[in-house]
């Protein structure tokens, strides 16, 4: 049976496990109908021109994993940022693991989507924000239909999340093939602030297909820093759909570090709904083998005097494929916009491919919008310079690549995370950089 049919027929069983009288029931039922008519995207769609899901969809994924909660902290410690105190939301095969997690309700809510959806206390927030900015397409609707678990984070007005929040999704490989659909909702109210780190990790080589949807709402003057670590096994595929809505003077940044996984697709969308917003989207991609990373970004400038910055760096080795499809859309009311988009790539192998499509759609005249895209290789003269000073070729190359990616790293505001990423880059490049580790 095709995955699409399987999902549609599983939906009934899925719904029965819930309170069918709740408001969410209707949202889910509508969503599954949408998915039924839209289906999975194909390469014929312009946005999926360079990314085919065929190899991902061919597996017979199980949709309802058996409950298995046997992971111990020591098994997963290395996947966490463990050297600082953080709130943690750990999910194993899509199911919340309470003994590995650390939640709070003290001034801020860091808890579960399942409880937020069921408890009346959270109803106003769910009513106001749940599924409000997610455009209808096959993958989003599919996630909405099966939305049940994920992170629910609500930072109340004038509050500061006192420590970073980690959202970690593990898949254990108890199933031969597993599909998980986390659904996260993050609401950061006026004048509040939060730092969030998200990670998806497979623990075995069984195929995993994650179709995740995250909605982020930043209130007036809110500050949200969001980091995604994508360093999964070659059997894991991830489609990450993230939607960020910003109010006046809010500052949001999204850093995506893609170091592994069979197929990774990031659909990242920023909607600016107030003046003087600032959006930052940065990413480092270092992949090899037959891996495929696709960054699809959108910044929708609706109000005047806003800024957006995009900076994506990619290093591609062996048979890997990189895709960058960035779009800046400036509405005609959005005057005095400053939008910058940059995509730089290095190809290390003739079998590697990069497809880049940086787009600008501009309807306002008083704007400064620019984009740049480069594809090239390491500068021979720089390499020679380093080697003339006794640095071996491999290290010299690594050093240059590190420098290439550095201005994305620079803006990471959690020092421990920065350190972690740096050492991961060093590992990727097969050298010890000997600094900042």
């Amino acid at each position: 049976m095709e995955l699409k049919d399987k999902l549609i027929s599983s939906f009934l069983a899925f719904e029965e496990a819930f309170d069918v009288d709740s408001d969410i029931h209707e949202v889910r039922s509508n969503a599954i109908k949408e998915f039924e008519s839209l289906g999975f995207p194909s390469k014929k769609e312009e946005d999926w021109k360079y990314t085919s899901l065929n190899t991902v969809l061919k597996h017979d994924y199980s949709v309802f994993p058996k409950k298995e909660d046997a992971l111990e902290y020591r098994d997963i410690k290395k996947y966490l940022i463990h050297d600082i105190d953080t709130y943690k939301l750990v999910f194993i095969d899509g199911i919340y693991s309470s003994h590995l997690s650390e939640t709070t309700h003290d001034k801020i809510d860091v808890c579960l989507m399942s409880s937020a959806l069921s408890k009346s206390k959270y109803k106003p927030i769910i009513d106001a924000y749940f599924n409000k900015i997610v455009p209808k397409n096959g993958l989003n609707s599919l996630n909405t239909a099966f939305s049940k678990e994920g992170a629910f984070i609500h930072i109340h007005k004038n509050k500061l999340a006192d420590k970073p929040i980690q959202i970690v999704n593990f898949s254990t490989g108890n199933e031969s093939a597993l599909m998980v659909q986390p659904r996260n909702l993050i609401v950061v109210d006026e004048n509040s602030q939060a730092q969030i780190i998200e990670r998806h990790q497979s623990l075995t080589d069984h195929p995993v297909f994650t179709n995740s949807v995250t909605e982020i709402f930043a209130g007036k003057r809110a500050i949200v820093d969001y980091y995604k670590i994508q360093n999964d096994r070659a059997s894991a595929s991830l489609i990450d759909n993230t939607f960020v809505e910003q109010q006046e003077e809010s500052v949001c940044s999204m850093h995506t570090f893609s170091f592994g996984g069979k197929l990774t697709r990031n659909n990242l969308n920023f909607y600016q709904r107030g003046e003087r917003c600032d959006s930052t989207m940065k990413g480092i991609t270092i992949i090899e083998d037959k891996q495929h990373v696709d960054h699809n970004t959108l910044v929708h400038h609706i109000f005047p005097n806003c800024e957006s910055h995009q900076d994506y760096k990619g290093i591609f080795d062996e048979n890997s494929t990189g895709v960058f499809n960035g779009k800046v859309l400036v509405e005609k009311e959005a005057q005095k916009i400053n939008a910058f988009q940059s995509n730089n790539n290095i190809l290390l192998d003739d079998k590697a491919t990069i497809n880049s499509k940086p787009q600008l759609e501009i309807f306002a005249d008083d704007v400064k919008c620019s984009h740049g895209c480069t594809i090239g290789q390491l500068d021979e003269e720089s390499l020679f310079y380093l080697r003339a000073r006794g640095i071996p070729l491999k290290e010299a190359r690594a050093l240059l690549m590190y420098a290439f990616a550095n201005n994305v790293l620079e803006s990471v505001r959690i020092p421990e995370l920065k350190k972690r990423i740096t050492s991961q880059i060093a590992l990727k490049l097969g050298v010890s950089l000997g600094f900042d580790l």
Partner: protein
Amino acid sequence: MAYTEDDLKKELETKEYEYGFYTDIESDTFPVGLNEDIVRAISKKKEEPEWMTEWRLEAYRAWEKMIEPEWANVHYTKPDFQNISYYSAPNKKPKYESLDEVDPELRATFEKLGISLDEQKALAGVAVDIVMDSVSVATTFKKTLAEKGIIFCSISEAIKEHPELVKKYIGSVVPKKDNFYAALNSAVFSDGSFCYIPKGVRCPMELSTYFRINQAGTGQFERTLVIADEGSYVSYLEGCTAPSRDENQLHAAVVELIALDDAEIKYSTVQNWFPGNKEGKGGVYNFVTKRGICEKNAKISWTQVETGSAVTWKYPSCILKGDNSIGEFYSIAVTNNFQQADTGTKMIHLGKNTKSTIISKGISAGKSQNSYRGLVQINSRAENARNFSQCDSLLMGNKCGAHTFPYIEVKNKSAQVEHEATTSKIGEDQIFYCNQRGIDTEKAIALIVNGFSKDVLNKLPMEFAVEAQKLLEISLEGSVG
């Protein structure tokens, strides 16, 4: 009172199409509609050999199965292909001995356009193969060219007289099933130009053709084939104006360039078809397929100044097949009122050490939409390929839009590809700087627009620059300078 950008905008909006007039010449027009019989009839009318008729029919059959493309960033009412007459030729078609014998009315048309044949002959030294409603009316300088072995004639003549060349090359760069409009053109093309430059010959003059759409309700389906044999050089100019008509006119041309080893082709276009009136009514639909292929060490350079047409859909492309070949694309696209342009280029790098340069300048005013859409593709065997692309857009007023859709596909690690794009308006600081130096605002805007597009204007051949300036005047520059 100081001249401001608002004034400029107002002027642009009210500027009527100056070249909108209609020549009343009896035309020999086919009934509307398209079917195999019409295709056969066109072929017969043109006294074409059997293979050509078959070729057209094949294209027609392919076209029937095709769907009109919708991916371009333009919106328009689709033409009804069964409501178009596919052939129209000026009725009086004697072979003129001298220019004096040309229909005076027709000549007056050209005079009004400022392309007096005599003037061209005497001053510019340009050979003009004038295509008026699809059939060559006058060809000049043919003798001089013939001495060098250069063939420059209408494509129907070439089919009759040089079938071996046409047969070999037609459809070799733009296959007849390439796309919807190319297939349509292949089936029904009425005429066009053919040019062959023999080995090692440097064409002594700029070859030029003026296209005009004249008869109301006739689509224009031009077919141009330029072949530059090994080591030759040719500069080819194509310029267009069309009279003001209310219905939308369809233009689906195909241009094929073949640059063999060490050859160079420079192809320049000034396009100023009727863009529709201020309310966006009427105007020409311009759906053109232009493509060139470069063999070893060859070079193809496209330069275009696009100021007209209601809807433009045009991507002059280069296939850089041979090693060390070079492709260039320089473009200025100006849109005003309700014009829509989706234009750009494709650079396909196949050979080693291939280079391409793309410079695209878009100026949008009024309620127009101006898009750049380009593809740079470096294939895995194209070692040391190099591309530089620059797309700049200038917006005037907040009712227009400027869009950039670059596609960059690289499969070779030694490739160096750079793309940059900017969008901005004329900066107040720029105007202030000029004002400070005693240049009034009007002149300053002219200066800035001029400077903005000079990169491309400079690439036009001398003889053409005059025409280009004139057309820019109508669209933008003239109204401020």
